[in-house]
């Protein structure tokens, strides 16, 4: 059986999670590789979550929040947005490929968009092959 | 250099008929629906704007009002009930008054009483004149031949005299129109050959009024054309064939056939017009200025009296025919002398002239090409 990447998706409760539900109610198909974890706001997503997910063996991590300006908490998604580049740098320093971690904005009415994003991401990650982070990171931790 | 606006004009123009012009909030619908408005002559909205702002000089200089034949589309579709059609009509009245150097026209349009009085006086004078002539040179019991009360020869001379006066009056006003709209326009330099080349448009529009035919409904054009041809026929008959016309008592089909046709045309169209204006059956008949009524009724009376004197003469009752003739003349003379140069009838000259000048403008003025490309649009806008 071909390699199936595991992707963890952190979705904000108000827009993205609802959007994912809409994909469901509208029966829009997308790869089963993503496992969704609901948080109240994209601002809640601590970079360490992402690191942890990768450490636990995720091949990719998807972060979704409301479109800029739509945040239920008025500006949470901006905070997430500002935080993301830092995370990216961190990941680079670990030698983790850029495509493995992605941030996207999905509104409550964009079921299709969510499906597309997941589909696209799955392909990219599949192309990258299994993540080595799991092992390497564990090694680091052992040294510490 | 900025021009001073004159808020008072709107109130003044009301006398000429335009009462709703101020209602216009400038959506541009009228200009867009008008089939005669084009790149050079954009109306009725633009003239309405000039009117609202009281820019008399600009209005004087514009031919727009004459290019409108009042099909009424603009008025029916106007979202504010601003009656663009009627406003153009009123502007034509106002312009007529402006072209007329004697100021009589202005007087007539602003007070129908004055116009009526003038007509009466003129009628009385004419009647008196012809009676005097008749009694001193002829016999009331004789209609034609020797000793006729009003011999065609005499009347004929009078016709021509009057015609010349009219042409002079109308001509001078037409000249003023040319000067105000074209002659004084710096942008249009005088080009004799152009004027000659375009000359054909004058008779063309006078006799066919083809632009009228372009309006939404052709019905008004047909009627108007019929009316016009009828009195042109009548005019020709009177100016050139008065003698055989008047001779009798037996019918001379050569001329009379035409005469009958013309008389019929006049009667039918005029009665139709009156009926329409009373019933307000059509858009362009909704609003009637006093001058319209006076004109129409004069026309009816003239036609009827004319027919009457003819019938009486054929019936052999010469005396009655003569009296009818005097009455007829007492109506014709004031109508022609007053209506043609100073009132509604003057448009028979101004309209074709406007068409003619419009042609000149189109050639002489730089032609903006039709806007269909957004790019150009943006260029223009910026």
């Amino acid at each position: 059986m071909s390699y199936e990447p595991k992707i963890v998706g952190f979705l904000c409760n108000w827009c993205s999670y609802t959007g994912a539900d809409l994909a469901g109610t509208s029966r829009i198909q997308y790869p089963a590789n993503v496992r969704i974890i609901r948080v109240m706001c994209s601002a809640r997503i601590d970079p360490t979550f992402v690191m942890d997910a990768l450490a636990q063996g995720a091949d990719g991590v998807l972060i979704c929040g409301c479109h800029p300006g739509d945040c239920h908490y008025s500006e949470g998604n901006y905070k997430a947005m500002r935080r993301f580049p830092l995370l990216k740098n961190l990941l680079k320093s670990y030698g983790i490929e850029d495509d493995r971690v992605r941030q996207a904005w999905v509104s409550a009415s964009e079921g299709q968009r969510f499906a597309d994003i997941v589909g696209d991401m799955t392909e990219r990650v599949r192309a990258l092959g299994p993540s080595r982070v799991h092992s390497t990171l564990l090694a680091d931790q052992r040294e510490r | 250099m900025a021009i001073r606006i004159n808020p008072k004009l709107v109130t003044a123009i009301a006398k000429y008929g335009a009462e709703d012009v101020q209602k216009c909030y400038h959506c541009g619908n009228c200009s867009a629906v008008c089939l005669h408005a084009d790149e050079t002559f954009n109306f009725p909205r633009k003239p309405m704007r000039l009117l609202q702002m009281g820019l008399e000089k600009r209005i004087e200089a514009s031919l727009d009002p004459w290019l409108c034949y009042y099909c009424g589309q603009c008025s029916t579709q106007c979202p504010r009930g601003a009656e663009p059609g009627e406003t153009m009509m009123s502007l034509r009245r106002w312009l007529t008054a402006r072209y007329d150097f004697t100021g009589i026209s202005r007087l007539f349009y602003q007070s129908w009483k004055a116009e009526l009085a003038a007509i009466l006086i003129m009628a009385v004078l004419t009647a008196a004149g012809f009676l005097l002539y008749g009694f001193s040179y002829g016999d009331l019991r004789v209609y034609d031949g020797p000793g006729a009360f009003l011999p065609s020869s005499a009347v004929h001379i009078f016709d021509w005299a009057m015609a010349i006066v009219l042409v002079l009056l109308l001509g001078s006003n037409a000249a003023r129109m040319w000067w105000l709209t074209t002659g004084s326009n710096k942008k249009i330099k005088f080009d004799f050959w152009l004027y000659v080349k375009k000359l054909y448009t004058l008779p063309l529009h006078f006799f066919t009024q083809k632009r009228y035919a372009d309006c939404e409904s052709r019905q008004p054009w047909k009627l108007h054309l019929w009316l016009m041809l009828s009195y042109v026929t009548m005019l020709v008959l009177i100016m050139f064939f008065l003698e055989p016309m008047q001779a009798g008592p037996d019918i001379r089909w050569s001329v009379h056939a035409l005469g009958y046709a013309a008389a019929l045309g006049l009667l039918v169209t005029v009665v139709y017009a009156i009926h329409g204006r009373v019933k307000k059956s059509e858009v362009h008949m909704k609003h009637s200025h006093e001058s319209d009524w006076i004109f129409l009724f004069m026309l009816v009376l003239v036609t009827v009296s004319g027919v009457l004197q003819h019938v009486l003469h054929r019936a052999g009752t010469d005396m009655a025919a003569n009296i009818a003739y005097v009455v007829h003349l007492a109506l014709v003379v004031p109508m022609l002398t007053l209506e043609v140069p100073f009132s509604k009838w003057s448009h028979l000259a101004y309209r074709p002239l406007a068409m003619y000048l419009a042609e000149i403008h189109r050639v002489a003025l730089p032609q903006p090409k039709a806007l269909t490309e957004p790019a150009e649009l943006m260029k223009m806008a910026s």
Partner: protein
Amino acid sequence: MKVGVFIVRSQQDDGINLQAIANYVANLPKVEKVRILEREPRLKSEKLAAEIRSESLQRIVLAGCSPGYFKPVFARAMAMAGGDPEEVRLASFREHGAATVDATERAKAIVACAVCGVPFPLAAEPKSTSVNPATLIIGGGVAGIQAALEIADGGKRVVLVERTGTIGGHMAMFDKTFPTLDCAACILTPKMVAVGDHDMIELLTNAEVREVTGKPGDYKVKVLKKARCVDLEACVACNACSDICPVSVLSEFDSKLSHRKAIYIPFPQAVPNVYLVDPETCTYILTEGKKCGACLKKCPKECINLKEKDQVVEFAVGNIIVATGYDLFDAKRIERYGYGKYPNVLTSLEFERITNASGPTGGKIVLKSKKLNKRTKVEEWVADPEAVAPKSVAIIHCVGSRDENYNPYCSRVCCMYSLKFAHLVREKLPEATCYEFYIDMRAFGKGYEEFMERIKAEGTHIIRGRTAQVSEVNGQLVVKGEDLLLSRVIELPADMVILAVGVVPAAGTLELAKMLGVPRDDDGWFSELNYNASPTHTERGDIFVAGMCQGPKDIPDTVAQASAVAAGVLRTIACGRGTNDLSTLSLSDIESRAAQIEAHSTQVR
């Protein structure tokens, strides 16, 4: 104090006997002179001043339907005569609702108050009534939803009656909302869900109010619950029934741009999230159970009952909130725009659906295309996501609005949503050109003007001038109108034309108005009690209006009104006192009250 009363005749005051009023007023104490002015009187301050001096009047009362116009000329006269111009008082019949029941009596009362220099609302305060704590809300649009939540959050019971199968109203159909461009679903659906599972809200969808009797504070309501044929509790919205249903008709929710089944759910996020059966098209119902019934067999929870009958429920409420919203102006009425003739001349709502991410095209802006309906064998113009995108889009403002031949009033929202459309077009089809034909750009709200500037900057051609007509020149739609700023008549090609249709009172407004005894204004919207002082109260006690049904409004204003109404309701419940109908007050009541107030009045200014 010597008072002179001038009564102004006007077109509106049919049904009001001015002479009777004059006679009545003449007998009031203090009134020195009464005069009826003819229609559109030509008044001169100089003359009036002389009159005032000769009669040595200290107060002038101007009575009439809306006599406000003449106040300045009298004020000037008063000043000339050395009196106090502030003592020119208005007795406006329209302002205080004398268009309703026995107008003349009301008018008398209004004048009486003015004569005493007492504002009518002060003197005319109906007795308070006891209040049933339950509230009826008619209409489940954003106004109804907002009001319902506010009141229910206050711990008071609400019955929300909605005519269609789901709450959400028009807003649920929209894609984005101006000027913030946040998606309507994102902000509305949470509120809809909240309404759906609020303990204090009883939701009656697919239902209509049929009868309202009783009096303020205690209204008896009859509601017709149309057969939904699906068990509200049991249905899990699994779509099995809809999948099997052979009947396919054009979806109202997608403004007929896509298909739905005879058993359907208006849209995926509907509340209640339960299917319903359309009796007009369901084969089983039409054939009285002889044919079809496929869904019955298919439903895993056996929660479909196609034999279900409509039923009437009765209950009592204290307050009633009317939030029936609006319908769109029927664009077919303006033939020269070719709506219904040319498939790609769309109404604004149709475009909302096309551009909506959860709409028939998944948010792709495309031209309509012909599709054969397999069942009916007729070709229908529908929005197909695969169809071609327009290269040019023209948006026409004020369709049916600001036009005496149709609706004289301004619909208030079209300018802004048109700008929003322009933005969406430019955003989704950067190549496409986009025109707006407007008369006045009414960007009056918070952040609206800035929004307009933004749209301009995005490169939309904003043309001042009303489009005269849309025609088809060998297959190409052409829009003709005058560009007033260039003063040129222009003809522009447009693949898609969007008509920014205005709004009209919702169907059935007239009947409802009769049922409730709430008057309507000349344009058919519900009349508020007082334009300035009480924009959400009505002539009837404890009946309120909120949102579009009172007059065109955008979402923030609608929501504000809805909350305002909630305040009115919560207040009456909190203090246990509602307000009775104004009509319960007799002339003498008001008269004496006015006199009282004047006696120990605290003069303002």
